[in-house]
C-alpha cells in the first residue's frame, strides 16, 4: 500500500494542497496540522476520517469561509493560489463545495439564486450571460435528471426543503455551474438509501476527464455509489494514510481506531 500521495504521477493536477496549517481565527485551536493532498483531473479522491479530524474544516478553508486562519501552506487550483481569493473568485475559478448543511435563504427564489450564480461566474470568466429563456431550458433539463420538480424551483433557496431535496439542490447547482473541482462535504449525511443513490447518480453523471472530485465522508456507504480512485484517511488534522478503494472497505470492516493504531 502506498503511504504517500502519488505526486507527479499524473500530468493534469487539479487541486494541489501543500502543508496546510489552519487554526480558528478567534481561538488558539489548531485544526489542520499540515495537510498534503493532490487531486488530478478526472479522478475521484475520498477523504475519510473520524469526527473532529478536520475534514469539514478543510472544505471550508478551501472554499474561503470566514473564521479560519491559515498559518502555513498553500492550496492551488490548476496552479492558481486559492487561499488569496474571495469565495466568489474561487467559485469563478472552478471550485465548488457541496455543503453538508445547505443554507436556507428566505426571500431569495431558487431560480433567481441559480441564475444569479451562473451569470456571475460567467461574467467573471468573461463569458456571455445566459438569457432567461436559455436558462430555463437548461435548468429544466438538469433538474429532471435529479427528479427536482418545478415547485422546488419556485420556493426560496432550500427553505422548507427536505434533507434529500437540499442535497439534490446542491448537485443541481453543481450540474449547472460545471465546476472543475468539486468538493462534497458529508453529502450522504441525513440521506436514506434511495436519496443517496439519486445524489450519487447525479454526481457520477458529472464525472469527466476535466473534472476532479474530493468526496468527504465519515462512512464507506457513499463510496459504494461514488467509486473513488484514491482514498485518504484523515486524523488529527493530517492525511495519515492513502490507498485505493480497498482502504474504505478496511475502515468499514475494522473501524478507525484499529486503522489509526496501525499508523501510529
Amino acid at each position, binding site marked *: 500500500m502506498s503511504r504517500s500521495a502519488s505526486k507527479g504521477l499524473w500530468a493534469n493536477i487539479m487541486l494541489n494542497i501543500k502543508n496546510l496549517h489552519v487554526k480558528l481565527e478567534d481561538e488558539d485551536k489548531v485544526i489542520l496540522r499540515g495537510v498534503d493532498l493532490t487531486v488530478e483531473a478526472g479522478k475521484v479522491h475520498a477523504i475519510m476520517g473520524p469526527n473532529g479530524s478536520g475534514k469539514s474544516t478543510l472544505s471550508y478553508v478551501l472554499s474561503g469561509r470566514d473564521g479560519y486562519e491559515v498559518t502555513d501552506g498553500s492550496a492551488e487550483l490548476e496552479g492558481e493560489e486559492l487561499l488569496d481569493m*474571495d*469565495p*466568489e473568485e474561487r467559485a469563478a475559478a472552478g471550485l*465548488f463545495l457541496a455543503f453538508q448543511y445547505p443554507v436556507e*435563504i428566505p*426571500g431569495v427564489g431558487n431560480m433567481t*439564486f441559480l441564475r444569479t450564480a451562473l451569470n456571475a461566474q460567467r461574467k*467573471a470568466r468573461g463569458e456571455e450571460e445566459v438569457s432567461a429563456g436559455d436558462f430555463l431550458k437548461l435548468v429544466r433539463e438538469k433538474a429532471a435528471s435529479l427528479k427536482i420538480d418545478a415547485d422546488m424551483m419556485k420556493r426560496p433557496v432550500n427553505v422548507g426543503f427536505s434533507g434529500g431535496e437540499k442535497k439534490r439542490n446542491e448537485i443541481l447547482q453543481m450540474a449547472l455551474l460545471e465546476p472543475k473541482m468539486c468538493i462534497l462535504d458529508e453529502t450522504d449525511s441525513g440521506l436514506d438509501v434511495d436519496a443517496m443513490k439519486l445524489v450519487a447518480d447525479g454526481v457520477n453523471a458529472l464525472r469527466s476527464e476535466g473534472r476532479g472530485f474530493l468526496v468527504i465522508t465519515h462512512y464507506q456507504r457513499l463510496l459504494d455509489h461514488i467509486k473513488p480512485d484514491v482514498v485518504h484517511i484523515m486524523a488529527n488534522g493530517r492525511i495519515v494514510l492513502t490507498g485505493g478503494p480497498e482502504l474504505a472497505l478496511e475502515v468499514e470492516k475494522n473501524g478507525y481506531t484499529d486503522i489509526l493504531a496501525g499508523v501510529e
Partner: protein
Amino acid sequence: MMALAQTRLDQLSARIAGLHFPSTGWQGKARGDALSRLGEVGLPAARDEYWRYTAPAKLTAAEVKADVSKGEVAFDETDALRVVFVDGVFDAAASDDLAMDGLEIVRLADAVTDIHWAAEIYGQLETKGQTPVVRPLATLATAFATDGLLIRVTGKATRPVHVVYIGKSDTSDAILHHCVMLEKGAEMTLLESGDAAARFTSNLEVDVAEEARFHHVRLQGRNADRRVNTHIFARIAEQSTFKSFTASINGTMTRNEAVLDIVGDDAIAHVAGATVGDGRDFHNDDTVFITHAAERCESRQVYKKVLKNGATGVFQGKILVKPGAQKTDGYQISQSLLLDGDSQFLAKPELEIYADDVKCSHGSTSGAIDDTALFYLRSRGVPLRRAQSLLVLAFLAEALSEIEDEALAEDLRLRLEDWLDRHEG
C-alpha cells in the same frame, strides 16, 4: 405636550385665509373644531411617551428648508388618473380630467356646499383617532390643510388614482388632507408618490363600507433633507378590505402613522412598509395603532427597515383587541437589517387584548446580514456586493409581497434595488 407658538399659528392662519376655503358650513366647522382641539393639546414634545424614539422638533419647527429637486414620481408604467399637487396645491393644468367611472373626485377647495358626504369624514375619523393617544399633528393638518381631494367611490374604479406631489420651493410646507369614502362593494386603488415639499404633512381619512376594497400604495422618495409626517385614519366595515403599503427612501425625518379601526365583522386590514436609509441624519418612524372592535377580523403589520451609516429606524405598533372582538387574528412583524455598526433600531411592538378567543402574535428582530447565507452565495460565485443586495432585497421581499398588484410591487422593488446599488460600499 407643548403649546403651539403664536407666530406659527398666525403664519398658518394667514396662509389658509389666502386660499379662500369656506369658513362656514361643514368644512369651516371642522377646521374650527380642529383649531380649538389643537389649542387644548398643543404640539408633541420630546418627553411624550408616544414620541419616545422620535424627536418631534423637525416636524414642529416653524420654518423648513430642503432641496426638493430630486422628487421621484413612481408607478409611471401604471395606467392611472393623475392628480398633481405642486407645493401642496392642486395643479389643474398638470392633472388629468378628474372624471372617471366608479368614482367622483372633488378638490377640497371646491367642496363649498353645506351638504356634502365628506362632512361625516373630514376631521371626524381624525378626531376619533385621538383616543387613547393624542396625535396633534393630524389635528393641525385638519385645521390647516392647504388642499386635498375628496374621493367618493361608488363602484369599481376602472384604474387607480395616482396623486403626484411635486415640490418647487425649497421652503415649501405642504399640508394635505384627503378623504376617501368607499360605498358598499366599491373598490379603488390610491397611489401617492413624489417629493411633495420641504415638509409634507398629510391626513388620509378612509371610510371603507361593507364589502368594499381599498388599496393604497405610496412612495416617499429620495430627497435627503425632506421631512414627512403622515396620518392614515381608516374605518373598516364588515367584510371589507383595507391595504396600505409605504416605501420610504431617504429623508431626514419621516413619521408615518396609521390608525385603523376595524368596526365590522370579517374585515381585513393590512399595513406594511419597506424603508431604506443611509446616514446619521436619517430617521424613519412607523407608528401603527390597530383596533379590533368586531369579530373574526384579520390584521397584519409587516415592516422592514434597512439602515446604514448611523441611520435610525423606529417602529411602534399596537394591536388593541376590544372586549367581544372574538376570533381576532392579529399579526405583526417588525424587522431591521443593520448594515453597519452605527445604525440603530428602536421598537415598541404592543399587544393589548381584552378578548380571549384570539390569535395574536408579534415578532421583532434586529441584526446584521446573515454571514452564512452570504458565504453560501459567494461560494456559488456571486460577488460580495451582489450577494449583499440580493440578501437585502430578500429581507424586504416579505413586506413588498403585501402589495397585491405585482406591477406596483415590482416598480417599488426596482427603486429599492436602485437605492442599494447607489448606496453600496
